[in-house]
């Protein structure tokens, strides 16, 4: 079965997030206020083909922890986006 996942990677709380800070700094120029606690991270979407949902999940877990995130400064969560149709994402 093909399942599509999203791995959301974000700077850990307490870790400096220069990007988030830069975005907040620029809001003034946009004339936007009331926005705070901006954290900029990565979102990796991918399709896993595996025998079972459990197997697929295991693959994503491994990818997320070993390749997609740096445990020292980042935390991540995994979203299941459902059965993959060719429409979702599309090959790089």
């Amino acid at each position, binding site marked *: 079965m093909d399942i599509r996942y999203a791995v959301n990677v974000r*700077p*850990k*709380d*307490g*870790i*400096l*997030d*220069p990007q988030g*800070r*830069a975005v907040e*700094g620029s809001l003034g120029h946009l004339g936007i206020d009331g926005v705070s606690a901006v954290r900029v991270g990565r979102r990796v979407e991918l399709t896993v083909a595996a025998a079972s949902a459990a197997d697929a999940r295991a693959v994503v877990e491994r990818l997320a922890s070993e390749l997609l995130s*740096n445990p*020292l*400064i980042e935390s991540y969560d995994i979203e299941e986006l459902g059965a993959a149709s060719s429409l979702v994402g599309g090959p790089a």
Partner: protein
Amino acid sequence: MTMTAERETPVPEEPLHRRLGVTDDELAAIQDRLGGRTPNELELAMFSVMWSEHCSYKSSRPLLRTLPTGSASDGVVAGPGENAGVISIGDGLAVAFKIESHNHPSAVEPTQGAATGVGGILRDIFTMGARPIAVLDALRFGDPADPRTRHLVEGVVKGVGGYGNCVGVPTVGGELVFDPSYAANPLVNVMAIGLLDERDLTLAAAPGEGNLVVLFGSTTGRDGIGGASVLASATFADDDPSKRPSVQVGDPFAEKLLIEASLELIRGGLVAGLQDLGAGGITCATSETADRAGTGMRIDLAAIPRREPGMAPFEVMISESQERMLAVVEPGRWEAVREVCERWGLPVAVIGRVTGDGDVVVLGDAGAELARIPARALTSDAIVHQRVAAAPVRRRAAPAPGAPATASDGLPERGMDPGAVLTALLGSANLSSRAAVFEQYDSTVQANTVEGPGHGAAVIRIKGTLKGLVASTDANQTVGASDPWLGAALSVAEATRNVAITGARPLGITNCLNYGDPTRPEAFWQLSEGVRGLSDACRVLGLPVTGGNVSLYNEAPGGAIAPTPEIGVVGLLEDVATLVRPGWRATADRVLLVGQATPGLAGSAYAELAGIAAEDGPPTLDLDRERRVQAFAREAAARGLLASAQDVSGGGLAVALAECALWGDRDRGLGARLRLAVSSSPAVDLFGESPSRIVVSTAARHVPALVLLARQHGLPIEELGEVTERPGDGTAPRLVVELHGAGATGAAEDRGSRVADAIDVTLDDLRHAWTGGLERALGWETR
């Protein structure tokens, strides 16, 4: 961060001071400096950071005192003890430079570790009032084939580039060396150079009782609390991860703003003193500036802008959050200072006042006094340890069966074709082109780069003058492993030679001493021998040591690193237009070798390749001859006698010649037909790395003058042949070196072949080996 504390994993039942890496005798010394009082938690945390090896130099200080630090007559305006050495270069200008290590953080998180290393050394430069104009990164890793090494290289290079590129300071040179001893303990040493108007020289002192203590730059978070992490977990029973100390993350954008704001404050005469925040954070910056001025400071914790809620006092005081500066400001100038910082978008706050009592005092809520420590107790009066040094006992292993009895047999016995050896050396991980790395660094920003990375020393012109600055970093760890005195002296010799052969006059030296655990007698012996070698070499060459940095405990379960005294040199070229480059310039120019090969292949790239038995000693170094070689190069350049000059270093004469050929005619390449008299052994003459030798080329008419000049300096000089013209038939130019003399013919007869008596290779083959070598070693896909 404190190396000591990081090493032992704390045992809960141990008393707090030990868990903070403070030994019992150190605790006693602390109590003594507090008039018998036992420090509270906060005070202990402050001491544990300030008395760490990193901040206090408690093991190395006695040794460093022996270094020649120069004087006003050498143009030294600021020497060791300041954030960076400063040397006057005339026209009312001065150059500030310093090298520093970030080995430990880079081993933990390569990208951020290297990035914050660059940020830290840049702050040392602009804190003095100098605009940073160049960075050099000296990197050392383990086996390039090891995935762990590849991960570290990728990350460190990303960190160095990511930071330097963004702040807009060109990275113009450095080193990249692979050696098994760095497998678990990479070295990331970064040198920065800055240019200042002498009137802007600013010192890191806190004069003037009643002056304001101003903190500007990034806010303070729990970054890099390092050694005191035990205190963190001790203080916070709950397991909230956000309360654990975290990796320092660099923000080059904030640094860029910090540079501009700091220089504007200095030019405007708005600060009485300026200090960057590095290891030890606010504790270090306040106590050092107060101690230097003989004053004290009162710090109001609540006034310090935070990034995170719920930080404990000790966290605020020792946090190593990056991109922060501490300024001492007369009350009347505060408004102007605030305006500058806010215009650059930097948080700024008055966090305390300069006092007269000599104490650093930390005030909590409602003015409660949380800590009171004499400033000097944290800095100049920190504990000093007299470590024990002991040379290792060397057992001479019996030569392996079949191993060459003497080095001189090395090459012929193995029946190697010297051309093949040369090609192999040029393509090796350590001698191949470093372009794959330095092409990730902006080396041209600021529009002053005359010679960027890739061809020996880097050259930066000084706009508005004729002058140029020439810089190089070098360290010889292979020889140092067996003879740390020699290793250090050779490092100084090569670094200064790299600068001298451009025609520049070396101004002074900065150094980063990377060694092992000083409580191990052998490691401390290596350190003291290294300092002695550094000191001896600088004395003979007449160069001041204006600053540096010591990184100890570079050890892993696998063992200690090879002793690595990284040397950074800055030289002055009075007229940058007279720059002499290493590549050959023109057809029919004559090629000459100045200096003479001496036996001893140990520690050479060739020995590693050919597996020469270690019994063969390293080459010897005659410091006075080194001095004369450099004097010769400078004088020859000044008299316009040199078309090119290249020093003989890694890979020996053969590799030096190949580089002259490959870099010839602006990298288009020029061949040569040469004859080399082989005194004792082809291996020693072609691939030996004995020092104090340079390859020069010059127009035929200058040869007599050059020979005479060499004689006047008491130096051997030999004409090798001439640069050949590009073949008309479109075929590639060749590098041909015929060997003659006893050593060579003997070898040939043994082998019944003549091939090994000549190097005869096309530049195409050499270039192919040299260009792709590093990517092949690291498994990087070539583009």
